């Protein structure tokens, strides 16, 4: 077969392109719009976090912050109370004057 004939045949093939059916075009477009509907949902930003929530996170989250606040309140109460009241509260512990930690080692401290 001559080169020119083959070139003509290929040209003819290029001119007689198969055309897509309306059904195919509809299916492709439906896919396009279907994927487009999904896209904004997938690209949605995460919910915006407020500054108070970010501060709480910096301190370790809500439970930790609650504990810190509790101790803060206890500290304030103890600070405002009369010292006598504090003595009353802590008397059971602070009243011990001497504590003999090693009674059996007294002989080591004897001179001579």
């Amino acid at each position, binding site marked *: *077969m*001559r*080169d020119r*004939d*083959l*070139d003509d*045949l*290929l*040209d*003819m*093939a*290029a001119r*007689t*392109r*198969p*055309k*897509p*059916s309306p059904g*195919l*075009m509809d*299916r*492709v*477009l439906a*896919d*396009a*719009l279907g*994927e*487009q509907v999904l*896209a*904004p949902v*997938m*690209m949605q930003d995460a919910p915006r976090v407020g500054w108070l929530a970010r501060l709480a996170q910096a301190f370790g989250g809500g439970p930790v912050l609650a504990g810190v606040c509790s101790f803060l309140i206890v500290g304030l109460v103890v600070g405002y109370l009369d010292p006598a009241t504090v003595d009353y509260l802590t008397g059971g512990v602070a009243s011990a004057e001497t504590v003999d930690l090693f009674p059996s080692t007294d002989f080591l401290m004897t001179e001579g």
Partner: protein
Amino acid sequence: MTMAYDADSDTSDEALMVLYANGDRHAALALTQRITPRILAYAVRMLGGDRAEAEDVVQETMLRLWRVARDWRQGETKVTTWAYRVATNLCIDRQRSVRRKGQVGLDAAPEPVDGAPSPDGRLQDARRLAALEAALAGLPDRQRQAVVLRHIEGLSNPEIAAVMEIGVEAVESLTARGKRALSNALAGQKSALGYEDDRDAG
């Protein structure tokens, strides 16, 4: 309703991809109108005229295109190059699957693309196109791909090189070998297809 873009508008395919990803429905329509016919024509040639398979390939290729739109990077690849590449892989996969099954059904037999009954010259053209389809189907995958992209789809050699991910010289070599093989395959049917004998040609 006024159409913002259509298949013939000046807006590039790449810009349409960005618009599509941003939710522009007109961009979806424009891309469908531009890319689908080209990929269908290519897939039909690559699949030896099997239109049903070619339509499946086109739909799958376009679906992948829509899904990749969100991550599309302008300037890296042309949309058509990307689509031809995906369609090529899908066509080759399907052909391998058919070969593994070891059968080619009647539906897959090459048929004239322009199958409308027509007298005289048009009937001859239909025969010639059918013979070309059959000869193309007999080429190795890479040669068929190069010949179809170059001589039927009208892509330039650098564009084909981008689609096939090879060098331009390799494209030229594949195209030349493909044409030579086509010529040999069709040589035995010259008379039946109404071509003059080489000796008669002036």
